[in-house]
């Protein structure tokens, strides 16, 4: 199963990853982190993630720390 790991406390809420995901699996959550930002979350109920790592490549703040494929 393809998946990404988000370190919520590094997210600065620039939301660049949301536009980057070809399947639209990253969304703004209701939670705030210790920086006071509304963090992004990874929602993949239908196992659509391609493991393309485009979100992690785009993230300027190392908040998407790991991407797994398979």
């Amino acid at each position, binding site marked *: 199963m393809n998946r990404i790991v988000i370190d919520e406390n590094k997210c600065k*809420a620039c939301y660049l990853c949301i536009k980057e995901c070809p399947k639209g699996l990253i969304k703004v959550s209701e939670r705030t982190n210790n920086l006071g930002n509304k963090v992004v979350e990874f929602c993949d109920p239908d196992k659509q993630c391609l493991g393309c790592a485009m979100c992690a490549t785009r993230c300027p703040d190392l908040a998407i720390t790991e991407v797994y494929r398979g």
Partner: protein
Amino acid sequence: MSVQVFKIPNSLKKDAKYTFCPGCDHGVAVRLVAEVLEEMGLTENAILAASIGCSVTLYDFLNVDALEAPHGRALAEATGIKRARPDKFVFTYQGDGDFASIGLAESMHAALRGEKLSAICINNTTYGMTGGQLGPTTIMGQITTTSPTGRNKEYYGYPIKIAEHIALCDGTAYSARVSLDSVANIKKAKQAIKKAFEVQVKGLGFGFVEILSTCPTNWRMTPEQAHERVKNEMMPVFKPGVYKDITVNNQ
């Protein structure tokens, strides 16, 4: 069996938290440098000559030895480090104000001397850290805090095209301009950084990469709008490409 296709490189300090503004492409550029250092096995052997500007705290993020240089003098300091320790891999990471304004003489002469150094210059068309003043790379018509009516040729003159100027220096082995506006261009940027590092490792001369980056805070834009600006306004002026590569000419 799951395969990890992306990880934070070990050449970045564990739990490094960037101090850059939200959406600033400095973060991507630092990660690319870290990835290339790790892939080329240079982390243990590298010395960074740190600069002044938003890139000033780079030694807090990269797991390499570093010396802080006075404003603009990173390449002069790097020259000293490299000549004292030719076995080390020495590189600088500077902004456009540091590299092409106050440090233009040091940068240009390091290239002219053909120092075996690698330099990364982040071009965001403004002085980011001090509040968005007109910089050497500010494009024509751009409004900044010190050019409230936009840059015009009568009063402010023209912006400098750094990669082209460095390519004209005989000591330069590699000079390229890349952009971070899209994922495809981020991958190209990594290849360019790798090439600039390789020419130093092979002892061919000066390696340089100019990276077109964003400054959403001082441009007063969202991170997404800032990338659109890089694509629509900056890239037609500062055209990405390889301006000099002596490894290709030799073949």
